């Protein structure tokens, strides 16, 4: 059962996890930002565990989250309708409610 639904506003964790492992799939440029769930991709083995060959890696829900380019990049050179969509695992996301889409 996935925690978020298509259309939900979500915030990407920033400065997290506290001790960075060597292999994460969430690029810095979306951390701390608010986007909208575009689709639920399914569940996949947690790459942060699989990268170290750990047995019994958990299965995690993967989302595609849509961000406004103008929110991600100060001075973005393009219209406000430009977006970026990116895959993010559920444990990197928290509910954002109606807070503004700027970085926290």
């Amino acid at each position: 059962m996935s925690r978020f639904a298509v259309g939900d506003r979500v915030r990407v964790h920033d400065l997290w996890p506290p001790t960075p492992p060597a292999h994460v799939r969430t690029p810095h440029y979306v951390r701390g930002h608010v986007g909208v769930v575009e689709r639920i991709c399914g569940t996949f083995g947690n790459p942060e565990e699989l990268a170290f060959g750990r047995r019994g890696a958990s299965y995690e829900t993967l989302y595609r989250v849509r961000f406004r380019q103008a929110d991600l990049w100060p001075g973005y050179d393009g219209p406000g309708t430009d977006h970026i969509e990116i895959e993010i695992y559920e444990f990197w996301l928290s509910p954002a409610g109606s807070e503004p889409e700027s970085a926290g």
Partner: protein
Amino acid sequence: MSHTHDHEHAQPRPDLDDTMTYYRVMEEAVRSLLIEKGIVTADEVRREVENMDARTPANGAQVVARAWVDSDFRSRLVANPKQAIGEIGHDIGPMHLVVLENTPGVHNVVVCTLCSCYPRWLLGRPPDWYKSRAYRSRVVREPRAVLREFGTEIADDREVRVHDSTADMRYLVLPMRPDGTDGLSQAELAALVGRDSMIGVTEVVPPLRV
């Protein structure tokens, strides 16, 4: 025969087959162990390399051309890419594919900022520029400038949508069918569809009229 040079000739890339780099040693060691332990045979390794080399952007072009001429297929392709592509005889293996439709309102472009994720089953091996740090870092933050360098100008009233392939999905852009191609067969259409248009850094242009 000698002639005076006032221009630079492209130098052939030097052979690197006498240099055992770290990764070459690792590849040889792992491959030898797998063969010695009977997990794979040398012929299976060779066949897999052959299969990898046989996958080319022509596979993707065939999918695009079919979607252009068959709207039911197009709907199935977007809803369930793996199944639809299977219908025309391509097994995309364990890949989870997302098909991104270009429309008059949206132009899609694909990148993997973290490495070089790419739909190899449909497009073969990725071009070097796709793996370069310059493309990966720039196309997310200034996509319109990068597209312009590929000769692709997207109007301001059309959204540019960048897709960052960071985890388990792979992406195929379904370009728009160009005007002036009504009389073309599916095979003729497929011949117009280049690799770069399926990554999304170009659009498909109509054939030149003679």
